[in-house]
């Protein structure tokens, strides 16, 4: 009986050590890595484009798909609402923050615009509403910059990286696409999603 | 083996005494006791195993019989029972009670008429 008790006690001790190690060691480490990754995903410079590939669609109409798409892009950490105008294929994304105070807002918007238009084939225009103003950008403006159709950029990560690292973050591009706030909605009607 | 079993309920109450009677004349093992019962009743009453074992257990617990293991020629062993002085006394008592009861009931049921 005594020997068995000692063995059981040792088992408990070992289990405790394993629990401690796993819980406060391994799990904490994994959580840390995850939060670092998630933080990185809020920036266009570090974003992993694979995250949005499941949300590619030929049509803008699917509201939940669009929502999912933007939740996996930079700036998702701000509260968002969406509106889709099906006739002009315009998407309005309302970010509950001020553009002035948002870090790297132009780079992130450029990235998101490219990603969204590459993912959704018939998306023609995006309006980004902030608390302090609205940006508007059309598909035409974006397509001008590229020789290939936008959706092809997502077929090959190399292409995507080239596009994002060398093309859209140039100051000239950013200045053209997202100048100082201009309240210029692309269309007059929008349906709240 | 002809099986003309008498209504066993009537006999059941006396199994203990019956076994004691058989053991009074010599030691037996389980099956041997069953055979003796069949023989003594001229084939008219067959004692079943469950009743046998229950009875033997009860008698042994009371101290009226003792058991011992005997080796058999084929290997394996048999459990034999022998009666004790208390068992003998118990048998005499049971026999006396049965005689008395038989007399009274015969009178009451009118078995002596005709």
């Amino acid at each position, binding site marked *: *009986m005594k020997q*068995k*008790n000692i063995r*059981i*006690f040792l*088992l*408990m001790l070992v*289990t*405790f050590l*394993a*629990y401690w190690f*796993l*819980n406060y060691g*391994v*799990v904490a480490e*994994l959580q840390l890595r995850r939060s670092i990754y998630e933080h990185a995903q809020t920036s266009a410079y570090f974003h992993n484009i694979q995250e949005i590939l499941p949300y590619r669609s030929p049509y803008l109409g699917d509201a939940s798909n669009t929502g999912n798409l933007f939740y996996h892009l930079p700036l998702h950490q701000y509260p968002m609402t969406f509106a889709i105008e099906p006739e002009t294929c315009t998407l309005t994304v309302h970010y509950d923050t001020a553009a002035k105070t948002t870090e790297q807002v132009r780079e992130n918007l450029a990235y998101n615009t490219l990603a969204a238009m590459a993912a959704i084939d018939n998306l023609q225009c995006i309006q980004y509403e902030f608390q302090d103003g609205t940006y508007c950008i059309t598909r035409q403006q974006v397509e001008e910059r590229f020789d290939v159709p936008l959706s092809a950029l997502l077929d090959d990560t190399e292409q995507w990286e080239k596009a994002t690292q060398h093309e859209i973050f140039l100051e000239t591009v950013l200045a053209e696409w997202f100048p100082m706030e201009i309240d210029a909605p692309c269309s007059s009607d929008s349906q709240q999603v | *083996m002809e099986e003309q079993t008498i209504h066993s309920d009537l006999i059941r109450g006396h199994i203990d005494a019956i076994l004691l009677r058989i053991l009074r004349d010599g030691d037996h*093992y*389980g*099956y*041997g006791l*069953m*055979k003796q019962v069949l023989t003594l009743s001229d084939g008219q009453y067959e004692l*079943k*195993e*469950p009743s046998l*074992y*229950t009875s033997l*257990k009860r008698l042994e617990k009371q101290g009226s019989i003792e058991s011992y293991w005997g080796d*058999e020629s084929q290997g*394996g*062993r*048999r*459990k034999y029972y022998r009666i004790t002085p208390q068992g003998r006394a118990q048998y005499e008592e049971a026999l006396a009670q049965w005689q008395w009861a038989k007399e009274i009931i015969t009178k009451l049921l009118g078995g002596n008429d005709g």
Partner: protein
Amino acid sequence: MNELERHVEKLFRHQPDTPETRELREEILSNLQAKREDLLAQGLDERAATEAAKRDIPSVDGLIDDQQTTNVERYRMACAQTVWLHCILFWIGTLPLLFTGYRWLGAVGLGLSVLSGVGYLLFWLIHPAMQGTRSLAGARRRKMIAWRIWGIFYAVAALSVAAVTFGSNLWYGTPVTIEGPYQWAVLASRFYVPLLTVLIPLTVSRFAALLPQYRVEG
């Protein structure tokens, strides 16, 4: 001969292994063999003789004294030790879940193991010597009830998990897709968590198995 042995085996299958039951087994077998020999000598064929012998004793209900004089104090200590051990086993079972949304079960495991260990220790320190009778059949019955209840519980739990996870797929006829190892792990953990409760019927089983070990002779 073998067939009679098997028959006796079957009769005693659910009975505890005590010196008493072992002796009764031997006795019953030897008497059945003697009967069979006798019937053969009287001219019956082997088949009929064996069947006749078997027929006379269809069960051992009522023949086995179920009440066991037990060293209750030591039996209870053995039971407390079992509870302690099983709590630790449960705790070990929760370790893989630390990586899932069921992390809190690890803390439950810790708590249970410590509490049951302390309880066992208290028992060790304060143990009144006690004897009493315990029913072996009662312990066996509780064991079977525990297993039956658990079986129903787990069947219900597993079906609920399946319904929640695959219900919409079944209803709408869409194929089930499990993308990647993470989803497999989540699915597996949902079936695994209720499975951990199997330690409860295992503990009750162990209580029943321990009881014959603490009988008091004489």
